[in-house]
Every structure is written in C-alpha cells, then in structure tokens.
C-alpha cells in the first residue's frame, strides 16, 4: 500500500510524483466513466417519459432489466411499429417502444413475431396470441373531438395523404400491410377505431341516446382491449380523440 501513502507524501522523487499523478488521473477517469453511465441511467430513474412497449413486455422495471437492447423485435415487425429509445428519451437507450399515433402495432404478423424474436424474454414468451397481450387500454380522451359523437361521417384518407403509417387490410392483401393513405374511406358515420381494431370485442359503437333516429354514437372500450393503439393511429381527429393509456389495466379504469 505504499502508493497510498505516496498519494499524500510531499517529498517525492520525480518518478514517484509521476506515479502519483497516474493513480489520481486513473481514479478521475474511472469516476468520469461511472458518472457517464449513471448519467445515462438518470432518465430511467426519473421516468422522464413513459412509453408504450411492444406486445408481451414484462412489467416496466423487469422489462428494462431483461432487455438486452439488440433490436431483434424491431427487425421482425412487418409494419415497423417498434423503435429503439435514445439517450435522453428516458425509456432506456436501445430499449424498444411504440409510438402508436405514428405507427401502431396492428398484429399483422399474426403470431406476435417480436415476442418470438426476443432473446431474453423481456417480451414474455408466455404470450402466444395477440389477445393475451396487455400493453395498455384505449380511452376516449377527447369526446368533443370524436366525429361519431358529433353524428358525422368520414370521407378520404384516415390521416391525410401524407401519413406514412401502414395497416394490413385483410380484405385487400392478407399478407402485406399497405399505407393507410392508399386506402380511402367513405363512411356515413365514422367508426374507424372500431372498424380497424385487430382485437375482437375490444371496442364497439353505441348510440348516445335511446332515440331511434339518433345519429350520434360513441366508441366504448371493453375488457378485451389490449392497448395496441391502432385506434389512436386511425382516429382522423387531430389530436386523436381516442388514445392508449400506457400499461393501464382493466381494474385501474373501474372495470370488474
């Protein structure tokens, strides 16, 4: 431990002085590297921003520890819904997330490919069907913006001609998702969120009153909803009238 006492000695030969500098320098750079890593971890501790995770993701803390940040889930996604987090995003550098308004998961791979691709089970392998996933729950966040509630129809491309998002329309091509912009609608009463929902029984339209001539209708989310966010992507209102509450569970919203 002579170097330790040398650190505090004042009468050193040049060689010892150089050695002392080297040890101090090493400690400083070592500390810098650890601080850099902790800095990278800080956005996660502070939970800067919550993000929708791919289907089958474990609970957030477990998901973040299990994910090896390789991006294999991203590679197999047919609609490229999955992206990887960046340093300052606060949801893990290299960890996958989905921005449903831009491109939601529409389960057009049929067999949750991303889960199969995950090498660590951060996307839990128990999930084998799309109906089993629990990413969150859809919620009509801005009822006043909902076209159906205003009794309005919808004509044209759901999100405009410039929107890049894709969706698989089984009636057009069972295997290949196409741009939503290339699939215009002509609806007497807007029901895009219900019409394109990939999960049976997750969402339905209900009239706003018992009046038989009532044209206004409202989307109602049911327990089967997995929170994929396809409705959020489809909604023609700007911003979307219906959104996904990330990681919300049925009991959280007062469901039985």
């Amino acid at each position, binding site marked *: 431990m002579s170097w330790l006492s040398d650190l505090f000695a004042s009468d050193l030969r040049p060689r010892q002085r150089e050695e002392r500098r080297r040890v101090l320098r090493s400690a400083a750079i070592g500390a810098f590297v650890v601080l850099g*890593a902790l800095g990278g*971890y800080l956005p996660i501790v502070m939970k800067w921003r919550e993000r929708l995770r791919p289907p089958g993701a474990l609970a957030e803390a477990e998901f*973040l520890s299990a*994910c090896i940040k390789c991006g294999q889930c991203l590679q197999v996604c047919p609609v490229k819904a999955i992206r*990887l987090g*960046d340093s300052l995003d606060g949801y893990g550098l*290299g960890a996958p997330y989905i921005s449903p308004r831009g491109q939601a998961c529409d389960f057009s791979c049929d067999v949750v490919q991303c889960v199969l691709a995950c090498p660590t089970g951060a996307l839990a392998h128990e999930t084998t069907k799309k109906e089993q996933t629990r990413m969150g729950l859809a919620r009509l966040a801005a009822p006043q913006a909902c076209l159906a509630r205003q009794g309005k129809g919808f004509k044209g491309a759901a999100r405009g001609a410039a929107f890049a998002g894709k969706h698989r329309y089984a009636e057009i091509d069972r295997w290949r998702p196409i741009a939503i912009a290339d699939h215009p609608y002509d609806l007497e009463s807007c029901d895009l969120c219900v019409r394109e929902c990939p999960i049976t029984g997750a969402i339905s339209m209900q009239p706003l009153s018992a009046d038989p001539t009532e044209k206004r209708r409202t989307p109602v989310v049911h327990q089967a909803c997995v929170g994929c966010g396809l409705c959020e992507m489809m909604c023609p209102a700007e911003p979307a009238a219906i959104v996904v509450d990330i990681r919300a569970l049925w009991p959280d919203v007062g469901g039985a």
Partner: protein
Amino acid sequence: MSRLIENFLIMFGKEPQKPATLAPAAQAMVAEQGSKEGKALRKRLIFDERAHDAVSHRWRNWRWLSIVAVNLLFVVSFRADVQLVEGALTASRFVGFHMADLNSALQVMLAYKHVVVNLLIGSGTVLVMWWLVGGRSFCAWVCPYHLLGEIAEMIHLALAAKGWIKDHPLHRGVRTVLWFVFAGLAIVTGYTVFETISPVGILSRAFTYGASLALLWVALLLAIEVFYSRRFWCRYICPIGMTYGFVGAFSPTRVVYRLENCLHEGKCRDVCMVPHALSMTKIGYAGDVKLPIGADCTRCGMCIDACPTGALEFDILGLDKLL
C-alpha cells in the same frame, strides 16, 4: 497453474515482474546472448535488420476486413432483409442460432436476476466460439469501436510525434475496479447501466437502426483517445474486454513468443494495445524459450507484423498433434 494466476493478476493491473527462475533452456540462451560474442552478434543483427526495414500490415488488413465484414453483415441482413445475422452485437441470431455477447448477457442476468435459457444458450455458443479463437480476438476482429480506436490512435501518434500532445497513461487496475462496479450497478439498480455507455452496443445499433444521440458519447471517447490518453477505452476501461480476457486465458489460439529469434528491440510493445502482455519480450523477462502471450492479448497480430525477426507468431495449441 501459478502461470495462469499470474496471467490473471497481470490482466487485473499488476505490473509484470522478471521471473525468479528461468527454465534451463532459457538460462542457456540468455547466457549465450549475454556473452561478449552474443552482444556483438545482436548489435550486428539489429543493424542489418534496420537496413532493410519493411513494415507489414498483413494481419491488420485482414482484421479490418473482418471488422467491416461482420458489422456490414448485421446491416445488410436487416436493410436488405437477408436475415443472416439479425440483431446487434449485444445479442443476435446467426442463421437462427442465438448468440449473446458475454458481457451484455452477464449484465442482463445480474440486473434481471433470472437465468434466461435463451441467453444461456446464446452466450454458451459465443463462449465456445471465442474460446476457440482466442477470447479478446472479439475486440480486434469484430468490435467496431476497436477500428475507430485504431484510427484515433494513428492521429494520436501523429500529433504526439509533432510534440503537440502527450500520452497520459492510466493505471490498468481501473478496468478491474470498473468491471466490478458495473456488475454491482446492474445488481443494485436492476438495470443494465453499462449498456448506456457501451460503445460496442451504441455503434452496432447505430449502424443497423440509424444514428442516435449516444454517438456523441462515442465521439467523446474517441476525442479522449486522440488528445489525452492513447487507446484509453480499450486499454484501461472496457469491461467487455476483460470478460473476453477471461475466456482468452484458456484459449488454444494465441500468439507465441520465441526467445531464440528475439533481438529485444521492443517494436512489438510499441504497436501493442496491451504491451504488458508482451513483457516477456524484454531482456530477462522470458522464463522459457517459448511462451504464449497473456490473457489480455487481443490476437490482433500487430506485434507479428511489427516483429522483424519472426519471434512472434500465431499458434494453435495441439494443432500439430491433431494433424
């Protein structure tokens, strides 16, 4: 056994020592080289050697080709949908087989506190593979940061030759401390903290999936290598390197040193990223006439290219018996 322990201690940061005893053959050779005629012969041989001094980059060229090819394979697999190697260097599938970087897999298991079967299979495959080809050969033959580090090193040396900058060596023990710090951080935080600064993961993901802010960190590391401390990340910091170093300690693929051919000019140590592993090339440091280079050796072949007298060469243990 004692040589293995010494090998590990040197990797952990210990300065290599002169051996207390030499093998009889080495002793005879040292005595011969130390005699009056031996010294005169060495002087003449060095003079001759320097007269037709040719620099070879044979192994370096192969290696750069390997680094570019492997990393390109990841990119092309995704971009052109060839699906040969899917994923990144942290974890991937090679024609369907799981592969997991040993350090990344270790970090995940420490953070997640579960033994993940796919990861065990993946890291097992990778372990056997790198055991066969030399452990830290991952660094020299696959790691994209290594290539950038070599370019940074060239700039560093050019600037240093002009006297504009000076190298600031660190104590190699830093890496050992950091290896345990990052293992501890994974356990305590439940997050793969090292992954936020790992240039291997950052670069590998950036190549395949596009640029990220994290590249700024890699740029900072390279700036430190150019202006402050030669090869500082690979030499003194990177825990991935040490993880593969453990594997390399037992590997049959290694560089061997032959005392007989050595003129002790130190050209190999000048180019080596881990010169402590080449300490036996110093006069009086070789305990035997034929010695393998230590665990920290990245099998990069720079010393082989640099050695003018063929005292260093690649060797596969037991291959001669097999053939």
